């Protein structure tokens, strides 16, 4: 991965971390912190997070392809966003 790509990925993770803080009103210790294991997310929080991620990044998360296992940390959510909108959020 080029330096530019690494920077873009880091920026995306930071945006997701900020979003989680704003939506869930919690500080995520690290990008890999497990939101489920740490009890930071429930159904209502997940709905809020999905909605805000879609609005923030202009994407649509298909529930048919949605994998809860890949929506457990800021880093994972950032990876999902990058996959769904690679041109907009990665170098």
């Amino acid at each position, binding site marked *: 991965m080029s330096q530019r790509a690494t920077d873009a990925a880091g920026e995306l993770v930071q945006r997701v971390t900020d979003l989680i803080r704003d939506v869930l009103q919690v500080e995520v210790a690290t990008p890999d912190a497990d939101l*489920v294991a740490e*009890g930071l*997310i*429930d*159904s*209502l*929080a*997940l*709905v*809020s997070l*999905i*909605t805000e991620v879609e609005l923030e990044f202009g994407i649509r998360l298909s*529930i*048919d*392809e*949605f*994998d*809860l296992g890949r929506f457990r940390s800021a880093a994972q959510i950032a990876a999902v966003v990058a996959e769904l909108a690679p041109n907009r959020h990665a170098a």
Partner: protein
Amino acid sequence: MSAIRPLERADLPSVAALYADFMNWDLDGVRDALVAYYARTMLDHPSADPEIPTLVYEDPQDGVVAVLGSNVRRFVHRDRAVRVACDGPLIVHRAHRPRGVGALLLRKYFEGPQDLTADDRVIDQVHAMSLRLGGETHGVASLGWSLVLAPVGFVAGVIARRATGRERPRTGLVARAGSLAKRGGRTQPASGRTEPLAAATLIELVERLRRSFPLRPRYDEAHLSWLFAELERVNVDGSLVRRLVRADDGRPLGSYVMFVASHGIAEVVQLAAAEPDVPLVLEHVIHDAARGGAVEVRGRFEHHLLAALRRRRCRLVPVDWALLHGRDPELLAAVHGGRALLTRLDGEWWMRPDPLQAAA
């Protein structure tokens, strides 16, 4: 592959286990009844719609860990056929609740091809989730009304509920007040007469009400036969009363469906009448409830009932949230504007499996 998929017959034992666990029932004693209930209400009923199915969430390790029931009702808006979907119950295994499985099921359901989703037994958390998913509160229907028929029995019921913590207490005082009411403490309705409500007469009545309710159920014999049979089987304490009210000249004016319970509360499931006829139909409801031993009649607010209930100075009582979700502003406006006959009868409020009932 999606973890969410339509309910299949082979899932029924797993769904029964989920429901029993949720209710803290011993599965061995209720499995057959629950399997039969879910088969009758979610798979085999005449209005079941494969395009708007009951949804399950299948975890790769634990199998089916959540179910969201789908109850599809055929409606008509003016001359257009409309599918109204009522989701519920939403049951998620406790170990999977923190993962947000319920939220995913709800979102998937709201994305379905129904014209309108109308829920009538929504708890606070699901209400909040649904609002974030684009739903809106059905304000009027989120409030309940109560008319006291026998004050002494009513007060005894309130005290008993507070003392026992039970929603349906039985006390001697309530029963005694109820029996006094039964003996004719209430005045006779000013006019009209009632008869048992048959499927054909309800179909005819709803058609007569088309000008009052451009959005209304499109009942047919098959659906009503299923509905009336199921209403007799649900886990509700009390007896089902369904009557047609005719004017003295024989014209059908309205109808009502209610449960009159032994704990003294009669719950109206549907009161169908044009607004000017509601006061008289309500008189018959009250008379009938009192004859059945009720000390209080309750229901949820609907636009066409407002004036009559206001005149009777009804009390407000808490009920579950009612919720709407739809993409057609005309349909939403019809409901919010009081031009829809959308009652608990066509929702999920009354649907409760009876664990003691033998499997059919």
